[in-house]
Each structure stands twice: as C-alpha cells, then as structure tokens.
C-alpha cells in the first residue's frame, strides 16, 4: 500500500521520547522468529547508523544546522539503540555475521530488481555476488571451526555456495568508483535504493571491524580482515553512485525519506507483532522528522520539497527469498570484473587491481583456506552422508601421524 508522505505528518519530534526500559526491550528469538525479522533488525540498525553518520558529517560542515541536526540525531540515536538491542545475546558475533550477509544478499537482490536505472542495477548485481560469496566463507568458518549449521539462521531462504570468489574481489581504489545518478533526473526510487544499500554496507564494514579482533582463531581473524576490506570497497562503490552535487539539506531530506520508506517496508511485512508495533511507531517518528526537515529545506533553500520527494512512496522493499534471481545473476555475471566505472569480462580485468590483489594475497588467502572444498550439507559437514565426511576423517588421522 502506497504511503502518502506529504499528507501524513506522523508524530511531532517534541513527542518522540524514550526511557531506558523502552530502549532495552526483550529481543527477538533466534530460534522462533523468522530470519527476515533478523534481517529487518540488522538493516534498520544500519539505516539508523547511517542517519547518525550523515548527521555528524553535515554538522561539521554547516554551523547553522548544528542544533536541528543535534535534535534529530538524538532521537535517531535512541531509535538505533532500541532497534539494535532487539538482537538476542545468544546470537554470537558469527551468527550475526551470517545475518548481515543475508541482509546484503536478499536486500541487494530485491533492490537490483526494482532499480529503474540499468547501470545502477548492474552495480547492485555486481556487489550482490561478492556478498553472496562472503556467505560461503563465513558458513565454512562456522561449520569447520565451530561445528554449527549456518542454515539454522538462514532458515532455508538463502543459498550457501560460492559467488564471485572473495580472493579476487580485492580491487585498486580506482576500480571501485562508479558513475552517480543525476540529481536533476533520477527516479525517487533510485535515490532511496542507493541510500539503503550504502547504509547496509557501511554498517557491515563497521561491524566486522568491531568483532574481527574478538575471534581467537587466526584464520577467523584474517577472514574478517579480508572481508572487512571488501566491505570498505562496497561502501566506496555505493557512496559513489549518489550525486555529490546534492545539497546537504537535499541529502538530509532524502535520508529521512529513506528512513520512512524502510520503516514502512518493515511494518508492512513484519511477522512478529511486537516488532511490528516498533516499526509502526518509528514510521510515525520518521514522518515527523521528515516534516521537520522539509520545513527547514523550504525555509533555508527556498525550494519545494516536491522537487526531491515523491508524493507517495514506492512499493515496499520485498523481504523474501531472492534465490532464483541470485542464481540467474550468478550464472550470467560471476566472471565480471570492474575496470574504472565499468564492468568487464575477467579477461579485461584491471592491471592495477590485479597487482593490488596479488600483493594483498601474497601471504595466502584466508577466504580460500577456510572454504577449500566446502559444500554446505544439512546438519553440517559432519552429518551422516555429508560428501566431505570421509575427507575430514582422513585428514584428522593424517594429522595424528
């Protein structure tokens, strides 16, 4: 159902209040809640994290906006806490990592299909196959080092198989920048899509940077270092598709519109009634914040917000398995590489990126090492009938000699 964002003013910011009990609510269940509930919580934490990041960057460059930014940011920060604290403590950092990659795969795949600009749709598909491969690597880590089954978190929605190999995802910086949309002509959905995916990737990078050193296994530490490096590449890529000539207030307005869009998408599809209420409440908060920023935009820039925002939002981002689409993209595009702003067959890979990646991989590749020969099987590689079981037993006895 389309949401009228111009007519619906939500809750005024003066009434957007919290207390500590409110912020630290009972989390969702790792076992009983749908995997897409976890996906929504992780994603919205990323959206709020981006709100703060943008809000601080804007404040550093715009003295006259510092107070309104601080007011909105305070609310966003508390929203972020409430959302992020819905993650349960029995969900380990590696469990949550699997959740992060599921967000990246399923949401990027959904966005790629709804993106009106063909070049940008290709950008999303390119990144998608890389996050898809990260899932394979982290799954191998979970299975081989911890003896746990990543599908318990993925709930059969997402494939676990190689994508574009992480080992060749490392690129020179000049091969991570893409062409931006034009702010004068871009479809509203194009602008929203870019903000969602950029936010998701930036949060993923920051999360891996935080938890990487918490692992004791050197292979895990190296793997997180490697994949965090790729996530920084992805942030660079997605940041570059946004028109840098948008004004600060234009960007702020788009951020609020994106937050409205995403809370609406979450609310429409949430299966946990408790969380559905939270999404509905925060949708109203974001509408209130959107109107606050609209008024600033009109007053300071003297422009009509309708130039930037659609009257009604696009259809919600679908939160569902995109397995068939991902497999099609995998079959057709896994061998693409990036050269400058363009995507090329692997034979035309950038010499600068080849040199860069050879240097990075010169002491070995954790993503290759962790997942060498890994094939996901239900109940892990150790389950009866698993194709790798005999090899594992032979390796162990070889070690014991």
């Amino acid at each position: 159902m389309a949401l009228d964002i111009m007519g619906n003013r939500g809750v005024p910011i003066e009434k957007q209040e919290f207390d500590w009990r409110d912020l630290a609510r009972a989390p969702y269940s790792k076992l009983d809640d749908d995997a897409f509930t976890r996906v929504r919580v992780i994603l919205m934490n990323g959206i709020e994290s981006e709100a703060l990041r943008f809000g601080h960057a804007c404040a550093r460059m715009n003295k006259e906006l510092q107070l309104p930014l601080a007011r909105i940011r305070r609310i966003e920060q508390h929203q972020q806490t409430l959302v992020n604290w819905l993650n349960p403590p029995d969900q380990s950092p590696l469990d949550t990592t699997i959740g992060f990659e599921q967000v990246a795969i399923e949401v990027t795949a959904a966005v790629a299909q709804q993106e009106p600009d063909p070049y940008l749709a290709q950008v999303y598909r390119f990144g998608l196959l890389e996050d898809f491969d990260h899932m394979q690597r982290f799954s191998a880590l979970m299975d081989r080092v911890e003896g746990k089954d990543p599908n318990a978190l993925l709930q059969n929605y997402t494939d676990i198989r190689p994508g574009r190999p992480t080992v060749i995802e490392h690129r020179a910086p000049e091969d991570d920048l893409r062409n931006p949309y034009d702010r004068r002509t871009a479809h509203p959905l194009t602008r929203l899509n870019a903000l969602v995916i950029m936010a998701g990737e930036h949060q993923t990078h920051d999360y891996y940077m935080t938890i990487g050193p918490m692992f004791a296994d050197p292979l895990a530490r190296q793997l997180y270092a490697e994949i965090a490096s790729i996530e920084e590449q992805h942030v660079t890529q997605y940041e570059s598709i946004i028109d840098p000539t948008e004004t600060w207030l234009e960007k702020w307005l788009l951020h609020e519109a994106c937050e409205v869009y995403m809370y609406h998408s979450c609310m429409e599809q949430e299966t946990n009634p408790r969380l559905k209420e939270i999404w509905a409440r925060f949708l109203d908060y974001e509408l209130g914040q959107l109107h606050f920023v609209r008024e600033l935009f009109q007053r300071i820039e003297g422009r009509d917000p309708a130039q930037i925002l659609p009257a009604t939002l696009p259809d919600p981002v679908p939160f569902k398995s995109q397995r068939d689409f991902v497999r099609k993209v995998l079959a057709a595009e896994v061998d693409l590489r990036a050269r400058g702003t363009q995507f090329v067959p692997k034979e035309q890979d950038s010499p600068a990126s080849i040199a860069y990646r050879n240097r990075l991989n010169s002491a070995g590749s954790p993503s290759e090492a962790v997942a060498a020969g890994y094939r996901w099987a239900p109940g892990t590689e150790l389950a009866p009938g698993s194709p790798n079981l005999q090899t594992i037993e032979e390796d162990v006895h070889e070690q014991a000699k």
Partner: protein
Amino acid sequence: MSRPSDLGVNRTGAGLSPIDAGRTAQGAQDGASGSPDLGLADELRRPYLEEGRVLGSMAPPTTLKGAAGAAMKRLQGESLGFFLDLLGARLAFERTGVRLYEGLLRKAKFDGAKLPLDRLAHIHDEELRHAHLVHKAIVDLGGDPTVLTPNADVSAVLGMGIAKVIQDPRATVAQSLDAILVAERADAGCWDVLVEAARSMGQDDLASSFAEALANEERHVVEIDTFYRELIYAQLGARPQKVH
C-alpha cells in the same frame, strides 16, 4: 619460547604498584556515597524475568518412522518434544566437540607431540560416532536433526568460551586440555541424564547405546584429565613427566 607461568611482566595485580593501589583505594573511599543498594539493580532486572520469555521452542516431530514409530507412541507431545530438545543439545555438543578435538590436535602436533596424537584422533572419532548415534536417534523418533533446539542453543553459548581457548594459538596445550576437560565433564554428565531419560521412557535399546556412549565419555574424562595432570605436574616440578 616463554611459558605462560614463567615469571614475567604481568601488570594486572594491585601489588605491582602498592603506592598507586593505595591511592586508588583511598580515592574510591573518598568518592563513595551512600550505602550499597543491590535492590536497585534487582528492581531493574525484575520486569524482564516477569515477562517469562524463553529462548525458543521445539519444532514438532515430523514423522514416526519404522519400528521406532510404534514404540514411540507412548511418547506424546511435550515429553517427546523435550526429549528431542535434549538430544538436539547432545548432537550440537558432539559436533562442536569434534571440531574442538581437531583444534586440539593441530595445537598438540605443533607443540612437538608430547601428547599421544593418535589418542586425540581416536577421541575425535568417538565424538563423531556419538554425533551420528544421536542423529539417528532423532531421526528414528521422527525429529529433524538439523533443528537448533533451545537446549542446543544453550549448549552453543556454554561452549563459546571453551572453543575460544582452544582456538587461541597463545593458549598452551595444557590450557587447551583444561578447556576440553570442562567440555568432557559436562558431556559425560549430560549422557548420564540421557541414559536415565531413555530408560524412564521405556526405550531400553536406546538407553543401552547411550550407556555405551557414556562409558566412552567417562574414559575421555579420565584420559584428558591424565594428560592435563601430567603437563601440570611437569610445570610444578612435582613428578617426572609421563605420557601414555
């Protein structure tokens, strides 16, 4: 290479800087206000306990297969579900245990094989056999062995510290044995419960095979404990090192 108990530069003790430690203690004393009210913290925690939430629930058994089906008809609803929950925890524990032994073996081999590596490999194989035993039991009871049960979830949380010690290259073989001994003792205790649970439900065949697994686990405890003590006594200089 230094050993962890060599006298070195551990800076964590207050005794290292008695003057500064004294000043810190005095400062804390000067700054303290009010008498302790542990009730405040409990009051804050109470509503969360009152909510009465659980980690999660069990998936219903999908089928009652073969000969086990008829025998299992006595087990209905909650008791079958709870038994499957316990089996799920055992399966998760054994699977993780297999990976723990792989980690220990790697470390012990690098350490110059003061431990009998073939014994560690043998224990590894037994843990794997136990995992398959439980896997079969779950399937025969109509359960799904890929379900992460509530008690398996608890088992995973409990095991995280053990795994972290074994995976850390800075933790010695002795420290890693200490960690795996915690796992083995817990494992033996849980198998004991499973034997009794199976018998109490009239599942004598299952109880017998669980009793064999329990006997294996009890041997694991003795073996690992022996390996561990040998290394500890060697460091204490209490008696000459002896390896089985």
